């Protein structure tokens, strides 16, 4: 895991990725309401930014890999850090999912594949969001 970029830059990455993920779900709901499949082409825009931001902020930095590593491959500080991030993610994911399902029920919307895939992805990326948001910039000098 390399956190050589500044904290603010990493936070922008988290916000950008989350906004794009939300936009994908919202846009899909709007397209469903309009009943015009041709509008699906507009999904490509947030999807593109989402994929790019994922690779820049979570793929290249190794954050995604780090949060999915086996415990045997982490040292005690890293285990503590992943535990903290998972604890936070578990709480936030429960709040987001519950709120979303309540909104969907109140608006009479049907849960769809895009929402489910987005939620699944969110559950996996939330620990990386937490670390990216909170970790200090690492400058290693000998």
């Amino acid at each position, binding site marked *: 895991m390399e956190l050589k970029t500044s904290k603010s830059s990493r936070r922008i990455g988290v916000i950008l990725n989350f906004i794009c993920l939300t936009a994908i779900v919202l846009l899909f709901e709007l397209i469903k309401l309009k009943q015009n499949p041709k509008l699906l082409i507009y999904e490509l825009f947030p999807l593109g930014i989402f994929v790019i931001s994922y690779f820049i902020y979570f793929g290249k930095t190794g954050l995604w890999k780090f949060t999915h590593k086996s415990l045997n491959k982490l040292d005690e500080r*890293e285990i503590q850090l992943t535990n903290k991030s998972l604890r936070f993610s578990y709480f936030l994911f429960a709040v987001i999912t519950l709120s979303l399902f309540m909104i969907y029920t109140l608006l009479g919307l049907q849960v769809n594949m895009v929402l489910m895939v987005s939620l699944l992805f969110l559950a996996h990326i939330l620990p990386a969001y937490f670390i990216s948001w909170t970790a200090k910039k690492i400058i*290693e000098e000998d």
Partner: protein
Amino acid sequence: MKPRKIYNRIAILRKEKALTRKDLAEKIGVNFQTVGYLEREEYNPSLDLAFRISAVFGLPIDLIFSTEPLKPLSELIIEKYKSKLD
């Protein structure tokens, strides 16, 4: 319970032994970034890790770690020298 800050002499001892962070990390079985966290006193090691560090430097744990700010080693030597003279 909020953990107490643990002060240490890892950075100075590592430099004295001419080890890089990566070298020390390999010897104690952690990521080299963790050595940085330990040196900056931003992470308190477990007892197991503290024992491993003391074994690498060949010093007792209480000479490397303390719950109170540590005096520079030179100061300790001067104190010891003075007490011998007295």
